[in-house]
């Protein structure tokens, strides 16, 4: 059959084809047992090569990649959870600081108010005292003026009385006049 095929050239190709077909019986190359050894041999070679490539290199590598990815994702999730907790903590701290600051501010305001009140009270007291002193002084002055005025009135009255007595032709007794004037003024 091989000789026949080899002998077939050019225009005899159809004849060769016919010979090949004849050699393969009913036209199913799958049933040509003469090629089985060849196919099985190469199949086994292929499977062994594939098996070694897969089991030694490819599959462990992919398994490692997948495991690593799983680890990374787990770690990232844990880190995210951690950061979330930290954020909550920070918020709490912030709120606490805010509350503290508010309390502090209230305290400062209260202190300032108290201080101002104290200053104000002191100033008011001082002013009151000053006013009282001034009023007392004024009163004293008024008293003095009143006293001096009374003295002047006494003097004028005495002089006038003496003059009136002497004008009437009497010898005016100075002492008696003074007593009479004093008596009258008191009365």
């Amino acid at each position, binding site marked *: 059959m091989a000789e026949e095929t080899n002998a077939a050239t050019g225009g005899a190709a159809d004849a060769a084809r016919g010979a090949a077909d004849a050699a393969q019986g009913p036209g199913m190359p799958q049933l040509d047992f003469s090629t089985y050894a060849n*196919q*099985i041999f190469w*199949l086994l*070679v*292929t*499977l062994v090569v594939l098996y070694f490539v897969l*089991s030694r290199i490819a599959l462990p590598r992919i398994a490692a990649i997948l495991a690593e990815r799983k680890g990374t994702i787990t770690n990232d999730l844990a880190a995210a959870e951690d950061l979330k907790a930290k954020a909550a903590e920070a918020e709490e701290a912030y709120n606490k600081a805010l509350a503290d600051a508010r309390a502090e501010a209230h305290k400062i305001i209260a202190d300032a108010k108290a201080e101002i009140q104290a200053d104000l009270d002191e100033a008011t007291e001082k002013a009151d005292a000053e006013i009282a002193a001034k009023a007392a002084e004024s009163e004293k002055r008024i008293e003095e003026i009143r006293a001096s005025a009374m003295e002047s009135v006494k003097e004028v009255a005495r002089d006038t009385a003496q003059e009136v007595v002497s004008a009437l032709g009497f010898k005016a007794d100075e002492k008696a006049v003074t007593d009479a004037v004093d008596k009258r003024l008191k009365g």
Partner: protein
Amino acid sequence: MEFHPMDQFIVTPLFGDGPVGMFTITNVTLWMALTVIAVVALLVLGTSKRATVPGHMQSVAELAYGFVYKMVEDVAGKDGVKFFPYIMTLFLFIVFANFLGLVPTAFTVTSHIAVTGVLALMVFLTVTVLGFVKNGAKFLELFWVSSAPLALRPVLAVIELISYFVRPVSHSVRLMGNMMAGHAVMKVFAGFSQVAVIAPVSILAVTAMYGLEVLVAFIQAYVFTILTCVYLKDALHPSH
């Protein structure tokens, strides 16, 4: 231009045209090598950056890994996970061979019963040996349906036994038949396209078939893999 729809499945030497011996480098060798290269490109080169945030290639590689891993875990159980590399090898080989077979003028290695038969037999033998090693004689409980009435059990045992031994046949022929039929049908429609009158219809049909075959390429790889997982589960936990 004359061609036969089954010509695409002929195993031919890549260099010269002598007889196909056991170690001859043939189109089978070429397309299996391309399968290996595709798998290496996706799963080894695609993941070489080991990025925590994956790129396109790495995403697909991780997706394939997760897809098969979950399948093994869900179907075969936790103790099936140690067979994950074997099942991943099977799945990737089949899915890439199927997809590469869809490249125009490609040779589809999974359309050959010699290939799928070996794959299925390997699964069958592994699972059977594993079943006996793991469970001893208890593995035979797989054939003794304890939930059925006692009188029916021998009959069911015979049926179960037959179905057990038919597994590798259905397992392999399903894959090979799907791949062969789809590719052959596409070639038949392609042949029709040489006739001017029906060419538009036949080209449309080839296009539609191609879309369907893309689907089938993945589904058959998936079916082969999940059945492997089911058989593995039977071996690990034989009681019904």
